[in-house]
């Protein structure tokens, strides 16, 4: 065999090594499974198939928001506005759909058919995304500040529309259909199926498409990506619009499920979405992370909190437990990556 052929074979062999992203994702997935098994030993009746299903289905909203948040984080940008958008789009959908002849201000709306009300609410959500994009891209304000602002703006508008309370009367009969529809003859609801679809599509986009590649490049080195011909600005605009629309859909589905528009809905969801992304190995500085990792990050968080409730810890401990989980996860990832790079 010639030297060149040997070298070629060696090249090919080394190429199959696990990438850092796969490594971290497997680590997070492993941690999620280990935690679940640990909880099964400690908590009576925890080890049940239905419980696994519940961990996912109870968290469909946060996981769906996590997709947009993860893409933005990978591109080097924050999105803290998603919780506010959940409230705003839900409130708007209800308001637009309420009949015009209500007894008081909170029970009369615009009288739109359900589908039109939902479309208009989505446009409202998208416009918050557009504000995010405009400030971050055109005015170059740090995204954490911009989205902190729009988080309050979105919830603020929702509060004005509901007068600080909620709208739940005088709705068309079909308003509750989408959020409560069950699928395939099981008890699984439409929003959960939509979440699963979203995850599959997002993983495909992230792994297999040019769009996914560009997201990573922009996050890894925005200067080099611009000089390499990537239109960073345009891409980040798309990501903010996408994230806002996803949050809008979540808000509308929740409004449909509860047949109400509530201005406090989705409070702290933006932080949960951020936390599960970070737990899932997404780098806060951008350029690194995955949607699958985020998904398992959500499972870790859900396991910890539900196991704690099962362990008769009072719900007051939730935040403290989340904090501990976050610290441990981030330290473990940093340590694992450093070891790997040293080796």
């Amino acid at each position, binding site marked *: 065999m010639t030297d060149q052929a040997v070298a*070629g074979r*060696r*090249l090919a062999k*080394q*190429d199959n*090594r696990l*990438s850092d992203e796969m490594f971290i994702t497997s680590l997070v997935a492993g941690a999620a499974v280990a935690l679940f098994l640990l909880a099964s030993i400690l908590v009576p009746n925890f080890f049940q198939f239905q419980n696994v299903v519940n961990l996912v289905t109870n968290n469909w909203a946060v996981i769906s928001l996590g997709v947009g948040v993860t893409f933005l984080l990978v591109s080097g940008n924050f999105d803290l506005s998603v919780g506010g958008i959940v409230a705003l789009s839900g409130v708007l959908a209800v308001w637009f759909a309420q009949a015009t002849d209500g007894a008081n201000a909170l029970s009369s709306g615009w009288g739109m058919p359900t589908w039109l009300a939902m479309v208009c609410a989505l446009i409202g959500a998208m416009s918050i995304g557009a504000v995010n994009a405009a400030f971050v891209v055109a005015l170059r304000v740090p995204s954490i500040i911009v989205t902190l602002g729009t988080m309050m703006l979105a919830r603020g508008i929702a509060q004005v529309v509901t007068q600080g309370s909620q709208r739940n009367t005088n709705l068309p009969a079909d308003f509750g259909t989408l959020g409560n529809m069950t699928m395939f003859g099981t008890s699984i609801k439409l929003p959960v199926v939509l979440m699963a679809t979203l995850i599959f599509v997002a993983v495909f986009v992230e792994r*297999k*498409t*040019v*769009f*996914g*590649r*560009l997201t*990573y*490049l922009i996050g*890894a*080195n925005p*200067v*080099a*990506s*611009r*000089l*390499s*011909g*990537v*239109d960073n600005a345009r891409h980040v605009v798309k990501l903010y619009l996408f994230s806002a629309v996803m949050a809008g859909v979540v808000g509308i589905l929740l409004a449909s499920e509860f047949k109400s528009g509530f201005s406090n809905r989705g409070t702290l969801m933006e932080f949960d979405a951020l936390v599960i992304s970070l737990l899932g190995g997404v780098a806060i500085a951008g*350029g*690194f992370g995955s949607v699958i990792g985020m998904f398992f990050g959500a499972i870790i968080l859900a396991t910890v909190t539900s196991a704690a409730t099962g362990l008769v810890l009072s719900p007051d401990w939730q935040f403290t437990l989340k904090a501990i989980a976050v610290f441990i996860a981030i330290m473990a990832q940093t340590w694992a990556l450093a070891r790997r790079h040293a080796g």
Partner: protein
Amino acid sequence: MIVQTAFAANAQEKALSIRDLTKDYPGVRAVDAVSFDIDRNTVHCLVGENGAGKSTIVKMLTGALAPTSGSMAILGRTYEPDSTQDARESGVGTLFQELHVVDQLTVLENLTLGMEASRFGFLVKSDLEGRVVKTLAAIEPTIDPKARVSSLSVAQKQIVEIARAASSGASIIIMDEPTAALSEREVERLFGVIRRLRDSDVTVIYISHKLDEIFELGDNVTVMRDGKHIATKPLADVNGRPELIEMMVGRAITHDYEPRGDIADNPVLTVKGLTNHLLKDVSFHVKGGEIVGFYGLVGAGKTEVARAIYGADKADGQIDFKGRKRAASPKEAIAAGIALVPEERRTQGLFTELAIRRNIPIMNIRKLASFGVFQDEREKEVAREYVGKLGIATNSIEKYAEKLSGGNQQKVVLSKCLFADADMLLLDEPTRGVDVGAKSEIYDLIRDLANNGRAICIFSSELEEVLGICDRVFLMYDGRIQAEIKNGTEVDIPHILNVVTGGGGENK
């Protein structure tokens, strides 16, 4: 005393004595057995071309680098700083190019910053303030100690930093290209400050590419070339710019330029009146198959020309590439067939934490996709192809670009441009930080590309480089093209150096 016998009898009189100072890097000797003295209370200039070893000497003086061998002494006492902090305590202050003042504090607070802690009690502090105010007033009375630093100009901030060094008891202050960001009037003011410093028992080591400044300000000059000490003498004894330039360049620069015949007749790129914050009325053209060089010192505007053509920076003026209007963004430039190898390879050219194979297709990433879906296997094929073609030394295409040597990193950046199918390559400092072997491989590659009809612009601060491969060279100084020379065997090197150091020039 043993220490003192190592130096000349009058060593106590010398602000700084350097003996046999040597610094080795792997494979290269940056400073080679340099010895010279700096007289007390003088402005001592240090000159030399890029790579002559000036900045390595400065780094050893400020404790940022340890010498491989040799010694230094201040006023006859051995000086071996092991950190910049240590150097400062030994009385060697430095005016860095990036300023280290705190904008939110007042001038006075900046001047006493870090000194309060080392002294206890209020009495000492008020004494300190008085001393500091006096120092500032002595070197620049127009700056109000109570003014907020954010309200000062860059030049005034520099002076505050000088005053801080002086009032902390520095007997030697090193200034590395201090006028790079200053206007003409501010330069005059800085010179006034430097003269007053000299008169108040401070020795100034002054490093600049601008020879006019050296003659105006300096008492003595030390010339370095290729890491070696060439001469140290009073500027009064130097016979004008020509002699200084001759010392800087020495022997004729060896260059292996060979005229190439296959240059197209019509220009592919025509630039007219390019002007922006730095550039002034830059006009030129480049033909297909031609290698054109832009030579000038740091800050002459070479990078700005490249970035303006590439659409990365805004500029007024006309740029016409193959009959197309100018590119408004790098994306448009690449689409038109222009590719840039940027000045800073690691921060602008590469994604260091991505694998080699992920770096190579970036400039033309859609070529590897069908209907938006990325073809991973095609990417690997492309990466292996370019690793082989350009001889990138690596055991895997999955290796992080970070872990490659400078030369191999640059080959990855060049692969990016080649994969983009560019007809014109803009190469900004293409061989900076690249070892000799990889350098000549890159030159061969550039010649190959030109011979295949591509137009190439090289922006370089290494004269040997532009004279080695370019067919024509534009000399830049102060944002302008000062002269154009045709490369050949008869190149007037002193003339070139005169032009790029501000000696004026006309087309030759």
